[in-house]
């Protein structure tokens, strides 16, 4: 069941009004898509945070606007803690939507027992799917990841049947390798380089100068 967001029409615009709106526990949002006029909306911050926490990508609107919408874009503040604004895209049955879904690793890689470290190279994957079957996350089992091995996009376990991944199947997703050994820095090698080179200044000890 899709998350439900209660929305109201927003008639006042600009940073001053939006700041007041945020102080009152609401968020400014805009709804667009399907050739219809964009509509300025406000929605409850609490409801929206809950939907985000649940990993929802497609939500149901209630109130002045109804129907399914895709969370197209979310703007965050500098500290990435508070949502500032939300973009909602109208979707209908039969539509195909492009969404970025996070990839979550599952299990324990046997390679880690041999001293290896697991490095996730691809954390999100773009997929084209119907709005009804947008998954919260995709899972990749690393139980067969040996030391020096790599798992690719093709190894992702639970891609929905009607979904199409928009990356190549051969793209590496996660690898298990030995951690890089930190080289002891040779103090003598850096001697004499206590100041950086100045662009355009000729070196004093150049011959013939």
């Amino acid at each position, binding site marked *: 069941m899709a998350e439900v967001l209660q929305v109201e029409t927003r008639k006042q615009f600009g940073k001053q009004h939006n700041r007041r709106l945020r102080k009152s526990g609401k968020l400014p949002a805009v709804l667009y898509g399907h050739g219809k006029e964009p509509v300025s909306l406000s929605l409850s911050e609490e409801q929206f945070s809950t939907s985000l926490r649940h990993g929802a990508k497609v939500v149901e609107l209630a109130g002045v606007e109804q129907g399914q919408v895709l969370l197209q874009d979310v703007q*965050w503040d*500098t*500290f*990435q803690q508070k949502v500032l604004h939300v973009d909602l895209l109208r979707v209908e049955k039969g539509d195909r939507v492009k969404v970025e879904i996070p990839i979550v690793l599952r299990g324990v890689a046997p390679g880690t027992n041999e001293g290896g*470290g*697991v*490095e*996730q190279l691809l*954390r999100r994957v773009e997929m084209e799917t119907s709005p009804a079957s947008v998954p919260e996350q995709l899972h990749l089992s690393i139980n067969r990841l040996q030391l020096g091995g790599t798992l690719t996009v093709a190894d992702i376990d639970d891609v929905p049947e009607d979904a199409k991944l928009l990356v190549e199947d051969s793209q590496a997703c996660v690898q298990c390798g030995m*951690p890089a050994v*930190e080289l002891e*820095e040779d*103090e003598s090698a*850096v001697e004499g380089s206590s*100041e*950086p*080179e*100045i*662009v*355009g200044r000729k070196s004093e000890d150049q011959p013939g100068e």
Partner: protein
Amino acid sequence: MALMPKRVKHRKSQRGRIRGSATRGNRVVFGEFGLQALEGGWISAATIEAGRIAAQQYIRGEGKLYIRIFPHKSITSIPLETRMGKGKGEPDYWAATVRPGTILYEIGGISEQAAKICFARLAHKMPVKVRMAKRK
């Protein structure tokens, strides 16, 4: 050896002012967890290095540490017991200018609990208030 630029146009720079918050470099992009500055300030190359050592001694080869700031700014000072005037001092150290919101370090490949402890150790070295941030 502390971080320092390889080539610069000018040896000395004006002090400048740190205004506003970070609009770039304020998201965790390489690892899973980050250390985010909550205040602006200068972070010296020696401090960045001290933080790196503190973090790496804790994670000990597990996971990966990313340093997201670089000391581009030379900070000058005049010697002690010098009369005022006679021009700007000589470069003393290099520092990174940090605005509130900047991600200073990132860690990947370790658990959240381990990252929390690691950043707590690292935070002691920092001259600005910090918080732990997660990748969104």
